[in-house]
Structures are given as C-alpha cells and as structure tokens.
C-alpha cells in the first residue's frame, strides 16, 4: 500500500515538475547559512503562498498591495494571499499533506500563526526551523525578550519569526457609559449592577478564552504561580475559584447567561447594537478600524485594565514541506523591515504594534515611528504595555477552555 502511494506520488511529482519554472527551494537545510544575496536570487521569479486570516479588508490591502508590491517590484516574487476564516484550516492542510507523504511539494509556504496552532506545527514536526539567523532583518528582533522568544509559553527556537504584537483591551461607548470598570473585580461588580449589559464569547473562541484567563489570573491572585508547565493541583485549586466567580456572575450576563455569543464578531455586533455595553479584543487597534469601517459607533473608546491585560506576539511560520522556502524567507525579511513595520503601525492602515525593536532601526525609521499619531479612540500601546500580563502555556489554555465548557458553559 505504502509503496503504491509512493509510486503514485513519484508519478505526480514527475507530472508536476515542469510547472515549477523557478528554483525549487523545498530543501530548507541548504538555505540555512547561505549568503542573503544567494537566497534572494533563488527566490527571484518565484511565488509565495501566504495563508492568513482574511476577515479584514485593511489587513488584506496592506498585505496584497503594500507587501505584495515590494515583493513584485524589488524581488520579482508573486505574492499569493490566501484568506482563511480560521488559521487551523491552513494547519490542517499541512498536516494532511504530511500524513499523505507530501514532503517537498506542499501547498502552503507561510502561515500567520501563534499559540495552539504553533504548538501543533512545532510538536508535529510541521515547521521549518533554524533559519531565522539567515534573515538580515533578524537583527531587528529582540530575541532576549521572553515575550518574543516564547509563543504562548512554547519556546520559538528558530521555528517562526515575529510579525506583530497585540494586547487585550476593552472598549466602551462614551455616549452610553460614564465610567467603565477598570479591573477584573470591578467588571464583575459592574456586570452585577448592570444586569444584561455584559457578556463574553464562549471559549474556545479565541477572545472569549482570553477573557476567562483574565478571571483565572484574578482568582489565582496573580499570574506568577501559573507560569511554566501545567500543574494539575494548582489548576484544580484556581479553576474551582474561577468557575465559582463565573457561575455567580452568569445570571447577570446578557440573556441571564443562558447563552453566550459564539464568536468575537457576535459580541461586537451586540455591542454595536447597544445590547451590551462593553466589548473587548486581543487586537486593540481593532477599535480604530471598526470605527472607521462603521462597525462601531464613533463614540467608542478603548482602554486597558489597572490590574493588567494579557499580551501576545504573533508570528509567521514556514511549513516543512513548502517548495518556495527562499521566497517565503524573503517575504519574512520584508515583513520585519522597519518600513513594513512602520506602514503596519499607521492607524489608517492597521495600527498594529511593531514586533521589532524600533530602537535598532535606522534614524529615519525611528523618527517616523516617533511621529506616529495613534487613533485617538484606541487604547495607547505604550499605556497598555505598562500593565502587560504574559500568556500561559498552551496546555494550561486548553485545560481552562475545557473546564469552562464543563463547569460554566454547560
């Protein structure tokens, strides 16, 4: 059976081979340590298929027009942006290819990724690793920062490259609410005093899960005890308190907590239509874009919590079976450049915080970053960063999500 499949694959490979006119750079190990000029010349004339969440026209335009334009004009590389509704779809393609023995003709050249999906890719041997030093712009990345060197507690170890940073922030409508609650205990009290005006998306929704983790941190009396590997005894103790808080809160939630919004966009719609008065998002810049795009009322204001909010770094990863690794590396290097990171930080483009250490860029880029005018309604990144909380390891996160479903969301 295996032989038959292999024979079939060989046949396909022979049939497909003439299509690849440019250099096939599936063999990643041969690229590591090569001079950058060589990598660029191998990538020339090729293409790169980048799979990323496609639900924002602003991000799509930034990627296709700005980044795609640089790749076309400067490197003669065709960027094919593949929009996803959920990143796990791309991970499943790579996983399916590996199980079917497609080891060097994969269809995915790069994925925008972090957290659970990164853990799947790294532990499953689905990632191309160890090449990051080869990228010239890698020197702009501060790998000594644990928030960069670890992706949701999983060491990056050269298997992905940071692209952007995000930190959880809340938002309220100044026309409806005078003084919003500014910490987790305040939010709980506020929700009880204003029945039906607060809710959160049911985990495992990405954002709903982050909200539950904030309550988990609060129940634990701080995050310090939770860092590191999963600890069942500690989990049981904190989880019991967390479920008690959330179950106690449930009758005061939107629709008496009989149901929870299924996704962050459902919560945002509830907020936009005045059914609930608070919303939140892992991407704080989303408030600005949502106002400009008419999703949120213009009187919406983003803010952070006094007891801190959770932050993450998100990355781009190259699958082990990508046939266009050189082009993907060129793309990653462009994404890391000061110019591309600055463009991404412009409030009318995206407003996302830079993943590079801006102080390592040229004076010109530093001056540009200094002159950025953030969207007035977005919680300022510098202010959020003053009270930033780390993410837990993915094993903790999945335990909390499962526990919530069994104890609160049942």
């Amino acid at each position, binding site marked *: 059976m295996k032989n038959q*499949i292999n024979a*079939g*694959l060989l*046949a*396909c490979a022979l*049939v*497909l081979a003439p299509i690849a006119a440019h250099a096939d750079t599936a063999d990643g190990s041969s690229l590591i340590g090569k001079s950058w000029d060589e990598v660029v010349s191998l990538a020339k004339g090729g293409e790169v*298929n980048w*799979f990323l*969440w*496609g*639900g*924002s*026209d602003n991000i*799509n*335009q930034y990627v*296709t*027009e700005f980044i795609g334009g640089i790749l076309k004009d400067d490197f003669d590389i065709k960027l*094919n942006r*593949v*929009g*996803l*509704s*959920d990143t796990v*779809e*791309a991970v*499943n*393609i790579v996983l*399916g*290819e590996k*199980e*079917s*023995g*497609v080891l060097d003709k994969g*269809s*995915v050249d790069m994925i925008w990724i972090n957290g659970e999906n990164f853990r799947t890719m790294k532990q499953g041997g689905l990632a191309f690793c160890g090449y990051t030093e080869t990228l010239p712009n890698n020197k702009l990345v501060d790998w000594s920062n644990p928030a960069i060197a670890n992706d949701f507690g999983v060491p990056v170890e050269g298997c992905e490259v940071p692209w952007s940073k995000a930190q959880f922030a809340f938002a309220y409508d100044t026309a409806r609410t005078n003084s919003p609650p500014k910490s987790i205990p305040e939010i709980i009290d506020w929700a009880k005093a204003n029945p039906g005006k607060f809710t959160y998306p049911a985990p495992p929704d990405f954002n709903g899960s982050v909200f539950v983790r904030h309550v988990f941190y609060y129940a634990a009396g701080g995050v310090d005890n939770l860092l590191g590997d999963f600890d069942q005894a500690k989990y049981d103790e904190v989880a019991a308190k967390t479920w008690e808080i959330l179950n106690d809160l449930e009758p005061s939630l939107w629709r008496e907590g009989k149901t929870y919004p299924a*996704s*962050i*966009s*459902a919560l*945002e*719609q509830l907020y*936009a*239509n*005045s*059914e609930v008065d608070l919303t939140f998002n892992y991407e704080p810049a989303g408030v600005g874009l949502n106002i400009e*795009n*008419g*999703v*949120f*009322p*213009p009187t919406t204001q983003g803010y952070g919590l006094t007891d801190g909010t959770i932050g993450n770094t998100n990355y781009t990863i190259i699958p082990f079976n990508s046939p266009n690794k050189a082009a993907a590396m060129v793309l990653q290097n462009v994404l890391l450049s000061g110019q591309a990171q600055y463009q991404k930080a412009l409030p009318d483009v995206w407003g996302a915080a830079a993943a590079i250490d801006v102080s390592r860029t040229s004076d010109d880029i530093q001056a540009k970053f200094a002159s950025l005018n953030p969207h007035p309604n977005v919680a300022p990144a510098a202010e959020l960063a003053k009270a930033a909380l780390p993410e837990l390891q993915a094993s903790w996160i999945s335990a909390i999500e499962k526990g919530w479903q069994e104890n609160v969301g049942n």
Partner: protein
Amino acid sequence: MVGKDSLGIRSFRFLTGSLLIIWLVLPLIPLAIWSFAKGWFFPDLLPTHWSMRAWEYAFSDTSGVIDSLWLTIGISLAATVLSILIGVPAGRALGLYNFRGKQLVELMILAPIIVPGIAVVLGIHSVFISFGLNNTVSGVILVHLIPTLPYMILVMSGVFSNYDPAYEAQARTLGASPLKTFWYVTLPSIMPGIIVGGLFAFLVSWSQYVLTLLIGGGRVVTLPLLLFNFATSGRNDITGAIGMIYILPGIIILLFTARHLSGRNGAVGSFGQI
C-alpha cells in the same frame, strides 16, 4: 386536469405565493442596505452614513472577487455537466431496472448526503493528494461531484421510474437510429428532470466551502471562500456586497428555469421516489 380553479383556490395560491416570495426576498434587503452602509446601529431604521467602500473593495484587484466569480461559475458549470453525464445513465439504471444489490447502490449514492462532509474531508484530501489532484481546478471540480451527484441521480431515477421505454422501442421500429431515438424521444421527455437536477447540482457546487478549501489548497479561490472570510469577521458591509454578487448567478439560472420548476412537472412531482 382542472379547467378552471375556483376563486378561493386562486386567491389562496396568490397569498402563499406572495408569502413565499417575501420570505425569500426579505432577508436580502438588509444585506443590500448593509453593502452601502457605513455603520448601521440599532435602533436606526436606516444607516446614517452611506458609502460605496464595500463595493469598491469587492471590485478591487486586492479582493479578487471578480476573478473568483468567473472561476466559481466555471467550476460549478463543469461540475453540473459532469453530474448530468453521470447522473442520467445512473438514474436510468436505478429507475427502470431491478438488479441484485440495487438497494446497496442506492445507499452508496445517498451516503454523501447522509454523512457530514466535514467528517470525511480529511480522508478525501489524502486520497486526492495520492492521485496528485490537490491544488488544481480539476481536482476541485471532481470533489464537487461527491455532493452534487446524489441530487442529480435522485432526480433522474425519479424521472425514469415514471418513464415508459416502450416509446423508444416504438421509435426504433419506425426506423430511428439509437442516436435519433435519444435525441427526439428520450431527451425531450427527461429534459425537465435534467434541468431540475442540473440546477440542484449547480447550486450545491456553488456553495461548497470545506471541500474547495482543502482540495484546492488555497490555490482555487471560489466565492464562498472569500465570502466566509468576511461573514465570520462581522464585516456586514463587505459581506453584503460579496453576498449580492454571490447570489446573482443563482437568481439568473432560477429565472431561466422557473417554468420547469412549477411543481406540476414530472421531475419535481416524483422527486424522491426511487
């Protein structure tokens, strides 16, 4: 059958007809309004700000909607033609003849409707990879046949179960060649079934998401893929604009075939009677 319907029946028919149209058209109105809105909040009856931005994005090169529209039309038409080519003989065999294992064959044909696609799609993916069909338009057309064929075959077997092959025999005794017999006798009498089955096949192929994403590997970007991106992210304006483009071919085809869907023709009437 009945020459003149009574006034009561006629007004009842008018009422149910209008209700059905309202029920079908009403949900599309907010979609159309959203596509021109910049912000539309409860309790406003209409948006306060209007904008062409969603449509500009939908027609821009970045969104790829227009390329994807043509590609989706091509894929769905190809899947429809293949469904007809396979479905007509299969439906004839099931509708006219009894043979050993017929029930098993019927069950196998219905299986793709019974088993949820998401459960088997990863298995299908690895089969398509081993045949080298992934990431290609032809692979996507082929994989669309899995959900479209059951509908086509069901309709055609219904048509053939009410079909009298004696007409064909008569044409042959009068000297018509097999081809002429098919063209002048068989085809006209099964045409309503082909149109109805083809319509089903087209619309089923038109709305595939998971199969297209996985087998197409992101290289074959059909409209549902683009639409889902925005529908799941809460961008009602762009979802509205792409949605309006998305329903257009369905409506056009429905208009062309409406007279065959009146409910009085054999294909619809006998639907489901294998």
